[in-house]
């Protein structure tokens, strides 16, 4: 195995750190940055597997992942600006209207 285990571990670390940050932070912009970090973890994992199996499927998958990340960033940041204009704050807690 050409270092695949290490890559998978590093990818899992990045994914989980992004997940922890997404859950912990309240700033909408930082929350979306954390989703991008989760994407980075997935990219590392699929690139590692691509090397392990000696084909390009993983890299092609990572390329489409980049497309999804770009789409997500565009839409999410438009949404963030819209929400900021409505409430005047970036706090995600400001939108927890359905809390019991």
């Amino acid at each position, binding site marked *: *195995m*050409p*270092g695949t*285990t*290490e890559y*998978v*571990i*590093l990818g*899992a*670390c*990045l994914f*989980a*750190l*992004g*997940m*922890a*940050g997404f*859950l*912990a*932070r*309240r*700033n909408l*912009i*930082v929350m*979306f*940055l*954390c989703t*991008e*970090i989760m994407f*980075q973890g997935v*990219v*590392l994992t699929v690139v590692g597997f691509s*090397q392990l199996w*000696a*084909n*390009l499927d993983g*890299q*092609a998958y*990572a*390329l*489409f992942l*980049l*497309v*999804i990340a*770009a789409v997500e*960033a*565009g*839409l999410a*940041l*438009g*949404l*963030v600006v*819209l929400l*900021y204009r*409505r409430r*005047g*704050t970036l*706090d995600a*807690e*400001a939108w927890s209207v359905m809390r019991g």
Partner: protein
Amino acid sequence: MTPAALYTLYAAFVLGGTGLYFLLPNPDRGKPLAGAALGALGLVALVVAWALIGDAGTGAAFYVLGLVALLCTVRVITHPKPVYSALYFVLTVLAVAALCVLQGAEFLAAALVIIYAGAILVTYVFVIMLAQQSGPSSTDRRSREPFLSVCAGFVTMAVITAHASKALESSVAAGGTPRAEARLASAAAESGAPAGLVEDEAKPSDDGAKRSAPKPVTGNAMALGGAVMTRYMVALQLSGLLLLIAMVGAVAMSRKRVPQEGAVSPRAPLGQAGREVPPY
């Protein structure tokens, strides 16, 4: 993976998780120094675990780049100012791109740098400027459920790691995986383009490669392009469509007239907005 490596890994996760809990912005319980010390211990344990796993093919560059990526990610999560989070995220992207180069994914590394560090990050910085909050607000100074979120994240990390390592070992034991010596050549051959695109375009570079050095016949970018333009043609078209839809949606969203919400008690004067969060 040996049990020693696995338990070292779990110790690294516990140490790192505890460190992250103390590092997360929290005015009451935040102990940055203790958190940094614990996090550093966790990173050391992670490096030890990597060394114990000891696959061939990872050198000092992997350790350095992996540590840079992890440290910058932790700073993205813990920094109270969003602008600095975005800048640390650039460093994470660069480290990940370099790690991709180490694994032979040069085109992907270039795409990561251009798209992430070049385009997406600029969008983020623009939005941070547009939604400017004066000074670090309580939004950034206080985390939401830091203990539970750190637990969720690090338990996920441990589960993924344990299962992935088990799956890797069983797959290698079952059939073995093709080693990556002739990876680029075989990838170009099996990228689903027996005729046409890849082979025709491969010829010039083939000659050039023979002239200069006995290298693989096709580069990573050419092989990946062949795979994407043939086997993943439908996905490529669909992603183009997706980008178009997202663009239309973003334009429609940004043109939307925002109603002034009556529920929000007196609107803060210009420049004061966002300084305090009213209790919703």
